Every structure is written in structure tokens, then in C-alpha cells.
């Protein structure tokens, strides 16, 4: 088992190295633009989660935050394993990325179950809002507000069904804001 883990870890590292070296642009738009420097030609080494990355165009990619972007958000029910949300549109200091409404990372929860979103690395949240639409809806039109507040987002799971949950966070210290998505399977 230990050997298997070691092999998988090695493969993961190798895969990460391959994808980043082959898929990175000549210059990153998130790198300083003037003057171009050598460091700007390389992807940042500080991806907060190592799960993945930019893949070839024909292959779906998976959730991971960009270098020097908003924190990773993990949603968990009481006692359950946290699930990392899909990072959508965000502003982070003087950079930002525009994404569509996302389908969300799958998570199964119980009806009315208390849910909590935690950030890694921990980041202050000035305000937040959680809203849902039926799963497979392509946008926020008609969304139902679940809850809003400040600080750590905590709210109850909605009624039975399949939902896309968007949690929009406004970070403290004017750091920016971001939307995260989960696909809730409420039993």
C-alpha cells in the first residue's frame, strides 16, 4: 500500500510537471507585463492545491485555484469530508478571471443539514451569500437565496433535490471576491 501511494505520488508529480511545462503560455497574463522577465515565463510554483491543472484542450479540467488567486473553498456537512468547490469568476487584488456559471463539485448532504464553507488558506470574509438553482441550470436567473452574512459561511442544506450551489464571497481588506460552486445532492 505504501509502495502504491509512493508510485501514485510520483506519477502525480510527473504529470504536473508535464502539463505545466507543455501547456503554459509563453507569458502569463497574471505575470508582470512590463518589462517581461524570465520568471514571467514560468508558471508560479505556489499552486495551493496540487490536484491539477491545465490539461490539453480536449480533456476536461478539474478544480484548482490559479497561482496567487483566491483561497480554495471547501464545503462540508457536520462530520462529513469536505469537498473543494469549483472556483468561478473572481477578482483577486488587481487581477481577475471571468467564468461561466459552473455545474459545481458534487457533494451529498442531508436535508436541512448544517453546511460550512472553510477557506484554505484562511482568508477573512467580509460578506457572503449562498444561493441555489436546480442542477444543470446554466445561470443564476431565478436563483433562490439560501442565506447571507459575514464571516465563515454557515447555512442549512435546502430541500430534497439536486441543486447547483453558488457561494459568493467578498474577502476582507478589499482583497477581492469570488464565486464557488458545488452540486448538492440533497437526500
Amino acid at each position, binding site marked *: 500500500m505504501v509502495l502504491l501511494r509512493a508510485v501514485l505520488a510520483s506519477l502525480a508529480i510527473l504529470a504536473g510537471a508535464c502539463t505545466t511545462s507543455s501547456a503554459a*503560455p509563453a507569458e502569463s497574463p497574471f505575470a508582470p507585463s512590463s518589462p517581461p522577465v524570465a520568471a514571467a515565463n514560468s508558471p508560479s510554483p505556489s499552486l495551493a492545491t496540487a490536484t491539477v491543472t491545465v490539461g490539453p484542450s480536449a480533456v476536461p*479540467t478539474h478544480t484548482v485555484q*490559479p497561482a496567487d*488567486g483566491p483561497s480554495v473553498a471547501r464545503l462540508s456537512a457536520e462530520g462529513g469530508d469536505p469537498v473543494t468547490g469549483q472556483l468561478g469568476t*473572481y477578482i483577486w487584488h488587481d*487581477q481577475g478571471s471571468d*467564468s*461561466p456559471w459552473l455545474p459545481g463539485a458534487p457533494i451529498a448532504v442531508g436535508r436541512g443539514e448544517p453546511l460550512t464553507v472553510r477557506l484554505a488558506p484562511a482568508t477573512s470574509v467580509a460578506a*457572503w451569500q449562498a444561493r441555489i438553482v436546480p442542477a444543470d441550470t446554466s445561470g443564476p436567473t431565478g436563483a433562490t437565496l439560501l442565506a447571507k452574512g459575514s464571516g465563515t459561511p454557515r447555512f442549512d442544506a435546502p430541500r430534497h433535490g439536486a441543486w447547483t450551489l453558488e457561494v459568493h464571497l467578498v474577502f476582507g481588506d478589499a482583497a477581492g471576491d469570488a464565486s464557488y460552486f458545488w452540486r448538492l445532492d440533497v437526500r
Partner: protein
Amino acid sequence: MKLSRYAPGRRPRVAVVLALVAASVTTPVLAHDPDPALSGGTFGQSQALEFRWRSGSEPPSAIRTAVLEAAGDSNATRASQAATFGYDSTSSNPIGYGSGTCGVNGLACFTRTVPTGFTMWFREHGRVFDWGTLRWCQMQSSPTNGCYDAETIALDEFGHVEVLNHHVNFADESDYTDAVVQTYSRTRPKTGWDMHVYGPCDTATLQIKYDLPTLSSLYSRCLGLVTVLTLSISDTSIPYAGLVDFTAYLKVATDTSYGRLSANPIGARTVRLQRRAIGSTTWANLVTLPPSSTAGTYPTSLRLYSTADFRAVFSTPSNEGVRGDTSPTVRITVAPCTANCPLEISAS
């Protein structure tokens, strides 16, 4: 105090304070107001920002055209002294295209480095994401439903570069077309998928941050600026048939949350002088005061024959985002006629 001018009964107003616009990043999601502003400051007023295509990641021709047109859209519809954009092959601000960046799910992204620089990036046509396959309408010979208009997305990105954060829509998104800088851009054929002009709530923030093009330009309809109208006169007591100089002065109220618009003189508007006879409660329009070459001032001279009250009135216009105001009342006492008086005809 709010910037927005929508009446409570017409739209579900919520208390988003002006400070949110002045402050860097907004509290989310609650009302129809000018776009929030990004932190990091602004470029110079009407500063020319050039860009070039990123070496090795040059966009295809159709996307280049869309970006150039979006730069023109931004310049033409900024309704303010926001920075302008233009192509220059020697620029240090690259715009790229391809597979590499914008996070995992982004279709386009930007950086801004005030006061000199910015970058922009567009993901490649045909890329498969968790959310689907990215299709740029401009890359299709016959655009299909679900494609993104690259010109609209590029205008959104140029808006970010200026200073704009995403507009906060109503829950039903009925106000979607009030801004092109959106958290979730729409795809063909949904309303707003191909907006090629800034919306009023985009230009509202651009005006707050960069000021109007001229002092007689119109204020964005997404604003609801309070104005102050005063009326000064050359004399409060004159002889019969004496001449009085009236000068109305119209300006935006002083308010730090109005940014560069605070205390702006407002020129080239319609300001009326009204008169009320002593003992009457009814005001009557006397004359429309012509705007002078000095912005905000509306002077005229009138010969008066009887004592009366006067005030200036600026009615709330329907085509811009300022509120009407009425000046304080001034009384001008006119002495009785002593020579060459007109005949009084009394009813019998």
C-alpha cells in the same frame, strides 16, 4: 444616501451605501447601483493605454478583430475621462490567447497595474471545461447558440482594466443590460449576449472615478446625484422699474462618495426662474435662464415693477442621473412708482 435613482416602488431597493463604490470591493449582491470599483486605484484621466498581441500567443484574426473593436467600444462609450485603449505593436501590455491561464474555469482574464500596465488573456476556442466547450461566436462561420461574443467579453475585460468590478444584478436579473461588466456573461442568444457598449451602471462608476468628459455632459442614468441650486441677485431692494441681475448656480452636492463628481458645476441644463406675487401661494414660470459660458451659472437681468418672491428651479431630468433642486426663495422689494407711472384701470 444612495447613488441609484430608482424609486422604491419601482424596483426592490436595498440599502447599498455610496461608500461601497468609493471603497474598493463591494458588499455583494443586494441592489441596483453603479458597478463596484476595484482596489488598486485608477489610471490617469483619458490616459492612453496601448496593448500588443502577446508574442507566441497571438489571438487568431477573428479574436484580434473583436478585441480591437471592443477597445473602440470602450473608448466610444466610456462617457467619462476613463483611460482609452489602442493597439501599438511596441506596447508593453500584452493580450494573449490560448490554453494557459485564467484559472481552471475562466474564459478570459486580466491584470491591471496602475498607472502603466495591464494584461488580458482569452482561452482558446474549442477548449473543453467542466462547464462545457468554449465557443467564440467570432470563430464560427455561422455562430451557434451557446457561443460567447468575444467583443462583449473583451469589453468586459477592458472595463475591469479601467476599474470596474462586476455589476450586482437584481435576483431576477431584470437589470442585466445595465452593465456589460458581469459576473456571468451570457451566451447567444440570451438578452445582453452581444453588448458592445458600456451600460449605464458601468459608466456611472467610470464617471465617479474619472469624471465627466465635460461639465455639460450627461450623468449616467444609474446615478441619482443630489444637486444644489442657488439663486443670487444683485439687489434686494430696487426703485420702480429697476434692473436686477439674477444668477442661478447649479452643482452636484458635495459628497465624498461621489468621487470626482462631487461639487461639479452642472452646465447646459434647463433652469427656470419662477415668480410669486406677494400674498400668493402660486409660483409661475417667469423665464428660462440661459446657461452662461461659465459652467453651472445661469444669469439673466430683469426689470421689475412690483415686489415679489423669486426662486430658481431645476427639475429632475428624465435622461440622466441627477435629481432636481429648487433654490431658496429671495424677495425683491420694488419701490412704488413716483413718476410716469402706468395708468391703473379699476373694474367698476
